[in-house]
């Protein structure tokens, strides 16, 4: 009888503990990027951008959004709708509106936000 010889039987508890520690230490870190260069945001916009950062990062790094700043409101409307409809996006229609409010604020107040230069 053949034996499968791998290291699967090693005790993974140490690695697991390290993972959980890192996870807890970093889970509350501040979101980054979206508002860089924009005007000081009101609290609701800050919250909207935090939501956008979390939701977008579900599938891709937030930089993909940051570097696209400057494409205009109409295209953001289209992007947000496309992303909302992705499988398991976790973005409801109401949250889509909130995310769009963040991107619209950035478009309106970030003069330096040129696509590809953010």
């Amino acid at each position, binding site marked *: 009888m*053949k034996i499968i010889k791998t290291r699967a039987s090693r005790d993974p508890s140490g690695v697991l503990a390290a993972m959980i520690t890192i*996870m807890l230490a970093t889970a509350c870190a501040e979101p980054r990027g979206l508002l860089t260069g924009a005007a000081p945001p009101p609290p609701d916009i800050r919250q909207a951008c935090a939501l956008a950062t979390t939701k977008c990062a579900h599938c891709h790094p937030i930089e993909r959004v940051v570097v696209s700043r400057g494409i205009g409101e109409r295209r953001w409307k289209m992007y947000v709708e496309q992303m909302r409809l992705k499988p398991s996006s976790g973005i409801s229609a109401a949250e889509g509106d909130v995310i769009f409010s963040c991107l619209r604020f950035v478009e309106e107040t970030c003069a330096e936000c040129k696509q590809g230069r953010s």
Partner: protein
Amino acid sequence: MIHTPRASIPCLAASVVALGATLAASPALADKIERNFAGSIQLDYMAVPSTSVGRKIALDAATAEVSLKVTQDFGERMSASIKLCVACHGVETGMAFFDLRLADELSFRVGRFTPQFGAFPIRHDPANHRTSDKPLPYDMGRMLRLTDWNMGILPSPWVDNGVELSGSHFFSESIQLDYAAYAVGGPRAANEAADFDYKLSRSGELYYVDNNSRPSLGGRIALNLIRNKNTITAGLSAMAGTYDPENKLNYAIAGADLLVQISRVFVRAEYLVRRTEMALGTDPSLRFKYGAGKNGYDAYFLKQGFYAELEVPISDRVDGIVRWDGLRRQGNVLRTSELRSDSAVLRYTLGASIRLAGATRIKLSGEAYDFSDFKDEIAVHLAVAGAL
């Protein structure tokens, strides 16, 4: 009248396209057309320091993956997407489809696309995931011993022609249910095959059409529990059909996936299993490595794969990733195979993704392979990836 899938799929596709074209032709929508461009590039170098000539067991050294995608909206309900990719196979069409959305709960997709199976494929683009390569169940040629293993369970992105019905419903702000059902050409192989032949899915000489006139059917259902910045997603997927030209060899793939997102920390896990029928041939004793069992030759093999990974932000610019993945194949093998009737590979990956400027990242990772049938190996990746 016998209504076969062969007849109904093109009819359904034609109906959807016709309906979409009607909507798109509406004068009221003519001034709402929007077009978006996106793309990504990854240049990856893989070294195999544990062996003198890595090419003997892997597609090592440098590879480039490039994609360019354009999406055009035709009003609020219809859009078209085209994505061209350049990678190891040359230029391929990664996407060419129409989407028609009647409601959030009911969308149609027709054309060439990646059907919904599992959680990873939606992040398959190198600009969307943190490592240079993919988890073993979804490997498409970057794993060591890829020829011996015939890659993973369902290489990603699995691009195929077909039609997909999908939708999503929020029962509340915290509970989202997704579903998808599709019919696609499915995997291919020649007659008298013992496994999929992936080259036949990307060879223009053999045409980008179904090889057996019978679609593979599949679907996915996923439940998302959402609370503030935290999400838990659990999904189940399945796909089944025949893969040989004579429609004699069956296969079935099932998968389960789990994602836990706590703000910017992600824990992901997936399990895939594929049961594949092999042609026994006129004399199995000459074809297979192992003899008949109590009930004769078993025509099926089982291939299982899994991955579990943790992705954490280490700083504003650096994300760390730890992954454990593996494959196991159980069943008879061809005489030429170096695998046994029960073979496994486990891989341990430690990596980092470092943001440079804009959406450009450096990806570093080290992988330790633990083979049951071969000597253990080490692989090291260094890549630069970016999004347009």
